């Protein structure tokens, strides 16, 4: 099968890879580029573990083809922390123990960041609805929701 040469931008870096057109963006991130932070939970867009920002939109990277990345700009969990410091959401998740096994955490952090980037004062209901597409089988969600709410408060206070 003919592979397609894809040129894209991931976390600010120019990246090129060869993709079989059937491969998802998630397959390409993990298997061709070595960015294994995005996880495959279901592969059918139900669990959110593969969440990425694709040209500014929060997407499930298992429901995007790798070849669709041509000329686009992608943010993954690997690009979330700064040079020296973790992102405030990452710090808060550690501080408040908003994770257990950690498999869903990259997707939840990316989704929560996408929410706070557009609204730094969400209600608890808004956070719960926004994160409804991110499944966690360990925490029971409360710690995650509280960590997102606390981070939003910190962001507002330091703004």
């Amino acid at each position, binding site marked *: *099968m*003919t592979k*397609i040469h894809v040129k894209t931008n991931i976390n600010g870096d120019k990246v090129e890879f060869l993709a079989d*057109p*059937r491969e*998802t963006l998630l397959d390409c991130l993990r298997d061709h580029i070595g960015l294994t932070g995005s996880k495959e939970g279901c*592969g*059918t*867009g*139900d669990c*959110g573990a593969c*969440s990425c920002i*694709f040209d500014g*939109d*929060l*997407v*499930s990277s*298992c*429901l*995007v*083809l790798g*070849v*669709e990345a*041509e000329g686009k700009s992608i943010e993954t969990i690997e690009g979330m922390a700064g040079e020296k410091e973790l992102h405030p959401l990452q710090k808060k998740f550690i501080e408040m123990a908003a994770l257990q096994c950690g498999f869903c955490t990259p997707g939840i952090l990316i*989704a929560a960041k*996408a*929410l706070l980037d557009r609204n730094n004062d969400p209600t608890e209901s808004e956070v719960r*609805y*926004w994160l*409804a*597409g*991110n499944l966690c089988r360990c925490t029971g969600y409360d710690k995650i929701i509280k960590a997102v709410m606390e981070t939003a408060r910190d962001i507002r206070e330091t703004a």
Partner: protein
Amino acid sequence: MQYHSPSSFNEAVAISNSSSGLVKYLAGGTDVLVQLKIGTKSPDHLIDIKNIPGVREISLRDDGGYTIGAAVSGAQLTEHKELSKKWPGLVEGMELVGSAQIQSRATLVGNLCNGSPAADSVPGMIVAGASVSILNSSGTKDVLVEDIPSGPGSTSLENGELITAINLPKRKDYEGDAYLRFIPRTEMDIAVVGCAVNLSLENGVITSAKVVLGAVGPKVILAHSAADCLVGTKLDGNILSRFSAKCSQIAKPISDKRGSEEFRKDIIGVIAQRAAKKAYDRALGNN
């Protein structure tokens, strides 16, 4: 599988007509990629329409109606303040499809072409009187959304035909729409029943009504006789209970894991009644 990314609708249709095997168009991909993954549909050619200029735009036509490009996402509809104000029922139907991640990609046209009788956005489009622009090798045509679904997972579209946009008519004063569905949880589920209602009023009296029932038949059901019993009323007296009974009577659901036939017939009446009330209140306030 070969991937194509044409830069015009004509090119997309030409690729489709000159390709052999299974050809699928790709917009948001939230159904097509799942089918690819689980192996229910394995296209030989996938034609991505998202790089066609204008395909992700919502535009106001000279006649006052809206044209919604085939790859406009659910999130774009919700963010469009004016459209959401004029057609809240249509927008809230689409908004019920999937998570924030799905909303970034999923489209009205995809929801329609997937052919599910439980598609949340389809009843709202039909009661709005929406049509689709279809391009094929002999030219373009305009077809009502209600004529597209033909059964579970199937549509009346011919091979190679491509829906390029959805056209909404001009919204008049004192009109309102609503879509409600029943699911056993609060989010992220497929409709057990759904109902969209669109009403036009004159001095508070309903002058025309459209009612569409979802997930209670092999395809969406246009409940004409139920809609007729609303016309000439202000939803007063026992009109709503008559309307509710009529909707239950028209519904022809199956029993499956999401709900039994009896339950669906019962609950569609309740949901339809609430949707009618909501559409009426919106129509009163819409001037």
